[in-house]
């Protein structure tokens, strides 16, 4: 009987392993293809072979404008360093402001007692139900009024406020015992001190989860920067890479080389912080 159970358990484990392995391969295949294509010459890039027949690393220096494209004899019109910096800068700015404003709003919605608090929160939450496309033109109009078109401000400030971030952190803060605030108040702590010294350290998993989600989203953002910017100095990588995709066709191998370099920071951040991301989302999902 015991042997049977052990056999079934082992069989179940093998099936799970097989299914997960297949899923893992399927999920990682596009990434492997991307890396593989970045080492292929143009004539080979459409072939499905994952291992390049004539591997070449020349796509990387071409994208970095270190060497000219051998076909045209010209440098590709990419400002890789500038665009890379812009991507990181915009993502850092957006993340900093969004996490800060979300935490402050979450504190107000969870720890402070004021009239109409929950109604205002529900109204704020309701903004999440409006599709982004519907808000595109009003948001853009607002940017025009503030003269934020073609500026870094126009990319960072609209993304500095998030109903989702507020909701996520509020759930965390609700799970922290109110007795801590009361004790701190009796000891003479102001709401500001309670926020920074008691609540924020205890809400750390949620703050880290929101930081990662916001950073990844801002780093990969495409459409908003595309419509906001016309000056190539301000492009993030996502928009800058359009120079490799013209109406006469894509330079796929160069796009892949640029993408490989572009995703490195994301992979580093995700791999190092995934523990916080998972635990943060789990906690935020069950408390309320």
């Amino acid at each position, binding site marked *: 009987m015991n042997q049977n159970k052990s056999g079934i358990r082992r069989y179940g484990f093998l099936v799970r392993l097989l299914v997960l392995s297949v899923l893992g391969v399927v999920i990682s295949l596009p990434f492997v293809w991307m890396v593989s294509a970045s080492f292929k010459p143009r004539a080979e890039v459409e072939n499905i072979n994952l291992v390049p027949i004539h591997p070449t690393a020349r796509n990387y220096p071409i994208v970095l404008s270190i060497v000219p494209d051998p076909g045209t004899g010209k440098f590709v019109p990419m400002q890789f360093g500038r665009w890379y910096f812009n991507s990181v800068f915009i993502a850092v700015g957006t993340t*900093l402001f969004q996490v800060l404003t979300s935490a402050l709003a979450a504190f107000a919605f969870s720890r402070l007692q004021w009239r109409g608090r929950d109604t205002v929160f529900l109204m704020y939450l309701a903004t999440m139900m409006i599709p982004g496309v519907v808000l595109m033109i009003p948001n853009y109009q607002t940017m025009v009024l503030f003269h934020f078109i073609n500026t870094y401000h126009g990319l960072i400030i609209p993304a500095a406020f998030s109903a989702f971030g507020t909701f996520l952190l509020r759930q965390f803060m609700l799970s922290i015992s109110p007795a801590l605030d009361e004790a701190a108040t009796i000891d003479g702590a102001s709401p500001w001190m309670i926020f920074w010294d008691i609540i924020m350290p205890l809400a*750390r998993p949620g703050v880290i989860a929101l930081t990662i989600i916001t950073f990844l989203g801002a780093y990969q953002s495409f459409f908003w920067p595309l419509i906001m910017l016309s000056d190539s100095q301000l492009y993030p990588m996502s928009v800058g890479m359009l120079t490799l995709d*013209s109406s006469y066709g894509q330079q796929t191998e160069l796009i892949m080389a640029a993408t490989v370099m572009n995703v490195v920071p994301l992979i580093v951040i995700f791999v190092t912080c995934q523990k916080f991301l998972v635990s943060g989302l789990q906690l935020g999902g069950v408390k309320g």
Partner: protein
Amino acid sequence: MKAAFALVTILFVLMYTGAEGTLQGPKNDGRVHLRWATDSNPARDVQIAEFGKLYPGVTAAVDPSAGGDISKVLIQCATGVGPDVIDLYGDSMQTMADAGVLLDLTPYASKMGFDPSHTYPSARGALVYRGKQYRFPCNVSVNCIIYNKQIFDDHNVPYPTPNWTEQDFIRTAKLLLNNPSKSGHHHLAYAPPGGMTFYEDELIGRGGRVFTPDGLRCVLDSPQSNSALQDYYDLMFVYKVIPTPADTASISSQGGWGTGAINWFSSGDAAMLPIGRWYICQLYNYPKLEGHLGSVLLPSVGGLPSAGVVSSRAAGINVNSKNRAAALKFLQYLASPQYSNVIVTDGDALPPDPMLAKSGPALVDSAENDPAFQQPFVDAIKTARPIDESPYIDADVVTQWMGDYVAKVENRLMTPKEALAVLTAQVNQQIRRNLERRQDLQKLYEQQTGKPYSSNWWKS
């Protein structure tokens, strides 16, 4: 936590200072700076430089769009900060004109030398909407079949001849697929550019139309249209000489509206590719093809002369542009021989000025110096025709629906006849709805027909 926030804030301030401090401000050089909404193709730099030589007081900078998508321009124009010059691909002119985004060029075009008479007769209709000119071509494209002579030789198949028919095409493709190759490689006979491209070329080749001349009725269920789509179906599933979308998906590692086909052909895996002259601008990437390419008109069908779709990337002007005079000069430049010369030497599609595309030798450039290769494009533009549009329904919507039904046929969910019958009914129903809703269309109907509009107009 406080320390982390403080550190990130310091980092942000440093980055902000660095970012803003290294930005180069707009050049105050006394020139008018135009914004040109187009794809960020490196070729635009050359075109802008030539513009600067002709009009020293004006310059232009590219405001990039994503693959011809008009969302960015529409949002910018809706908020009053649109670009000055706007590239319009395919069907977008009607959408943009109806949205009130485009300047009516008619009062300026004749005086400044960029009215439709300055380009090919076959391309003129696509510049005008409801009697008004809204754009002038940046280039003009018509498909021919480019073939790889090496693959034909490898399979011992004769090259296509100028007056070949669809039966010749099928015979040639079968030989390419069935004749053993000397090299031992298997090749595709034909790199498929996508169902819609094929169907539209076949429709025009048969003298078919999308709408009646007054635009009030869709006629995609006509015998010509049925025959065009049926032929596409037969080539895939009966003769099996062109790959089906399923075949394509299984061998393609990349999406896009034709990039896959281009790469198959360019990498020597396919013998024939239907495409415009602009293909040669990327030949530098495929040195193995040098000296081995031929081109021929699309196969003729039904005893009619060979014909295909003429398309154009054409530029219009934002009605709210603050630099209207300079933007008009830009369109004047597009009609100039200097601009057309840039298009010819750059290996782009055909130049807007027909005088520079009079013969094969006139189109010879460094990318492809064989006049015989260039000649079919000169011949093709004479018989080509744009896909007709109706003022009563958005052309973009019709194209999207056509694509949906062609896909249903490709996937054998419907027969060509069924698909076209349903599509035609759907388009006609939308025309009726639009007429019911919009008074401007009702007025147009009355002007066109001389009859008062009534909700039962379509029954007559």
